[in-house]
């Protein structure tokens, strides 16, 4: 079943249109843009910045930045959710170095436990139908190419990338989580990213050759994944 958030074409076009109007000062359009995207952005923020109050502040920061930069968003270069997600991730990662000293590490082995006395268990903080980064990857069903390429990674590479990406862990934190040397983890992540790139490039090439034989679907064009 396709996750509704992954229906890029229609949703992406709607968001881009709203963003364009917001860039011209249309407050109602911006309000609609917020209504249609904020929940997704909040989810991204909460995975990385697990302090809810801080995550709410970050959400404000994101949309204040979006309003100010809306006029410069180029729909030919990027999709609105991609742009939004990057803004959100940047702010969330920046917020981690200001946060308290304890690293926000998800203990994958102990997801069923009740967690620390210090706060809610990791399970309580995760969204309903996701048990951890590895399972989240499985749910990327509509990002077929990405899913396929992730599957071609080794388990260690895949897990390292998932921890870094979804939970915003640094190399050092991933190393601590997986009980591996720092150099090993860095190497896993680096190789994983290189593999992903070449795998995705091959997939895009195959897709283009396939599409050349058919008419373009109406309206929407995906960004290049060169």
């Amino acid at each position: 079943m396709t996750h509704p958030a992954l229906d890029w074409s229609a949703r992406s076009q709607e968001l881009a249109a709203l963003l364009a109007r917001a860039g011209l000062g249309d407050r109602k359009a911006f309000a609609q843009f917020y209504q249609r995207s904020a929940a997704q952005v909040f989810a991204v923020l909460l995975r990385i910045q697990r302090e809810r109050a801080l995550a709410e502040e970050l959400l404000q920061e994101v949309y204040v930045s979006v309003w100010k930069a809306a006029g410069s968003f180029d729909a030919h270069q990027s999709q609105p959710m991609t742009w939004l997600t990057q803004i959100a991730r940047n702010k969330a990662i920046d917020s981690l170095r200001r946060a308290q000293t304890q690293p926000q590490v998800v203990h994958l082995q102990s997801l069923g436990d009740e967690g620390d006395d210090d706060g809610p268990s990791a399970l309580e903080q995760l969204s309903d139908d996701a048990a951890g980064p590895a399972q989240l990857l499985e749910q990327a069903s509509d990002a077929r190419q990405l899913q396929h390429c992730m599957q071609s990674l080794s388990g260690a590479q895949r897990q390292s990338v998932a921890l870094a990406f979804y939970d915003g862990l640094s190399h050092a934190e991933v190393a601590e989580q997986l009980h591996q040397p720092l150099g090993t983890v860095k190497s896993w992540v680096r190789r994983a990213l290189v593999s992903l790139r070449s795998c995705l490039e091959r997939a895009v090439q195959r897709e283009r050759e396939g599409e050349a034989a058919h008419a373009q679907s109406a309206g929407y064009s995906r960004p290049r994944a060169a």
Partner: protein
Amino acid sequence: MDYAKPERADALAAQYVAGTLRGPARRRFEALLSSHPGLRGAVQRWQDRLLPLAAVLSPVQPPPRVWQAIQRRLWPAPATRPSAWRSLAWWRAATAFSLSAAIGLTFWLSAEGPAQAPVVVVLEATGAGLPDAPTGAQAAAPGRFVASFSADGRALVTRPLLPVTLAPERAFELWAVPPQGAPRSLGLISAQGLTVIKRAQLPQALLQGRTAALAVSVEPPGGSPTGAPTGPVVFAGKLQL
């Protein structure tokens, strides 16, 4: 770090997007983005590759207070009466009170019998009330009002000289502005056609020539609830012969 080598730049872009580039290295990288289009391109390509991963996260509805806070930060609610005052005061300072107008008006008011030359006040757009003003009124240029004292001295008549637009749920209110002190309301006026304000309804200050100008503000239906302008002052004209 050698950012010039494409492979190196691409590797850093990948780490930046994946989230593993941290600390001072991350800040240095971000600082370089604005001046390195090649680096920006690499980042864009990695964003397109990796960020779809985030789409599988189940949405989490933020509480309404976040949106309220965003609105307050981006669009602070303006002061109501004070800002209308400020715009009026500024305008008053910028336009001299016309003594001749006072004399003319007195002459008109005291004369009975043969018709006198009607006193016409042209109320030009002040530039306030632009589309993003909180009331939503778009009553600024090119609109123009005219207020004329009828020759028989019985009434003040207003009408738009050029088309004016008024937001729904809003009304125009006419004010008599003295050289100092609070404006006096002359009532609501139509945005489309004539409005006739009978002499008996005009305040003494206007009739005795102690009025520097007439002004129109945008108000809620029924007029200002406070007795002073609460919305933007969108038209104003000083009294003149």
